[in-house]
């Protein structure tokens, strides 16, 4: 488990994270969601014992990150954002080196087992310098999983992977997360939704929201947001749509598109579609517009400032 209390880190006069308090239990996958520079990496570096916080404290796997740093490091698997590999070593040599540093008994078997898990057994004798980005990422993950750590901390683990690898990767993380604590960071909303039991949204070094992905979604989506596209220009369609009951904030967009919202539970899409076709338009597309991460932050930070008032 991870328990952070009031973590604050200053780089010189710049405050990277401020007063972060959160918890991640055993058997839980917790996602750190935030834009670049939000303080995700800093927090992870503190939790892995790479650097101490300026203020605050944290316990990882039952040990204090400052006074019992070595014990924490023994129990944590960490995949930093830039995958730390030695290009001059073979995959096996590298993992064996890591296993030796962790004093693993029968290190060779552990390495084989982990390579099997990340499906890199065939490349065990290949040099790391010859591996693709996706493969390197998997070796990085193998390094973090090698000692079957109680706590797994992954910094942007799916960056640079192709879609098939992302799916594979998520399966591994989900599997590991059943018994252990996983803390992963991402700036992709859908990834956090798919993988995590709980999401912490962090912006400018502060936690702005903490909830399950479902609850967050519900909290955020005050209204369903959709875009409709017809062949040709939609200038004359807009007044028709505006008149339909339940349609809110209808706006004309370029290329024959109309954007509008409706209250959750009051789906007006069938009516809108019928109206468009009756008016003689060829309906090309109808799609929901997801909230972008930026919009979420905007919404959450606005919520917070309102609450503070």
């Amino acid at each position, binding site marked *: 488990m991870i328990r952070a209390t009031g973590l604050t880190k200053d780089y010189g006069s710049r405050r990277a994270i401020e007063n972060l308090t959160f918890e991640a239990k055993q058997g839980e996958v917790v996602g750190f969601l935030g834009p670049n520079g939000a303080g995700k990496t800093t927090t992870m570096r503190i939790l892995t014992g790479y650097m101490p916080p300026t203020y605050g404290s944290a316990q990882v796997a039952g040990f204090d990150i400052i006074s019992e740093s070595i014990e924490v490091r023994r129990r944590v698997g960490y995949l930093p954002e830039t995958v*730390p590999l030695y290009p001059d070593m073979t995959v096996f040599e590298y993992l064996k080196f890591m296993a030796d*540093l962790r004093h693993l008994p029968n290190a060779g078997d552990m390495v084989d087992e982990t390579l099997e898990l990340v499906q890199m057994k065939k490349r065990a004798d290949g040099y790391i310098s010859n591996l693709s980005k996706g493969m390197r990422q998997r070796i990085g993950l193998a390094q973090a999983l090698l000692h079957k750590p109680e706590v797994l901390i992954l910094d942007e683990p799916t960056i640079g992977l192709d879609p098939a690898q992302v799916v594979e990767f998520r399966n591994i993380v989900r599997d590991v997360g059943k018994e252990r604590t996983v803390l992963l960071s991402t700036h992709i909303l859908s990834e956090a939704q798919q993988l995590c039991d709980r999401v912490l949204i962090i912006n400018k070094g502060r936690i702005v929201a903490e909830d399950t992905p479902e609850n967050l979604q519900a909290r955020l989506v005050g209204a369903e947001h959709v875009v409709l596209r017809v062949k040709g220009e939609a200038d004359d369609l807009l007044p028709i749509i505006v008149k339909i009951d339940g349609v809110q904030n209808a706006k004309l967009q370029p290329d024959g598109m109309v954007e509008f919202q409706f209250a959750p539970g009051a789906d007006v899409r069938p009516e809108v579609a019928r109206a468009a076709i009756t008016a003689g338009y060829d309906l090309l597309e109808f799609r929901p517009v997801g909230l972008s991460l930026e919009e979420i932050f905007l919404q959450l930070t606005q919520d917070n400032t309102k609450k503070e008032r």
Partner: protein
Amino acid sequence: MRNIWTIARREYRHYFSSPIAYIVALLTLLTVGVYFVVIIYYLTNQSYYSNTAPGIDIVIGPMATVFLFATPALTMRLLADEQRMGTLELLLTTPVKDGELIIGKWLGAFLFMLTIIAITLVYPIVLNKLTNPGIDQGVLISAYAAIILLSAVFLAIGTAMSSFFNNQFAAFFATLAMLVLFWWLIRLPTYIIQNGTINNILNYLDLNNRFTTMLAGTMSLSDIIYPISLTALGLFLSAIAVEIRRWR
């Protein structure tokens, strides 16, 4: 201890996959070899010197000069490169103490130097055959002890510089500057201040002075303690530098 050995082993192996190490080895062995041949040729063809048997100093002496330039090349990447590749973050989050990391790094480089030094052991064997009644065994041991201690100090200074800088070239030149200071510059003031405490201190700190004494076969306890202390100090400062990196 086990961590130190794991890190040292990786470091040692790494040298054999890097061109710089081969260049250093080539440079050292070539210089020593050419110097050796020339001296032997000179001595055997000069009637004036015919009574003087060449000693082991003709091998070890030039080696020290080459090491002065080779050390920065060997040590510049020790920690600076780990920082650049992001692997320092990896090492600092494994259950390895900062001191173990530093000693392991230094030991790997030291073992590489020892390998080069070991190759030069062929020269005393040749010298022993060439001279009658053979070379002085005491001087031989003292001279090799001198070069081993010297490379330990040089590498510790290099390790420290590499841990101070993120940039390899900065580490290279800082190391070179420090080595030139301890090897050569430090004695210059003694030509002006010929007596007193300052003179004594500078003489004590002068690595070259101690090296030359040992090369001649005279070894005092302080000749051994001083380079070992300096090595320890270099490694200690390196560990502090890593610790400071964490807090920044």
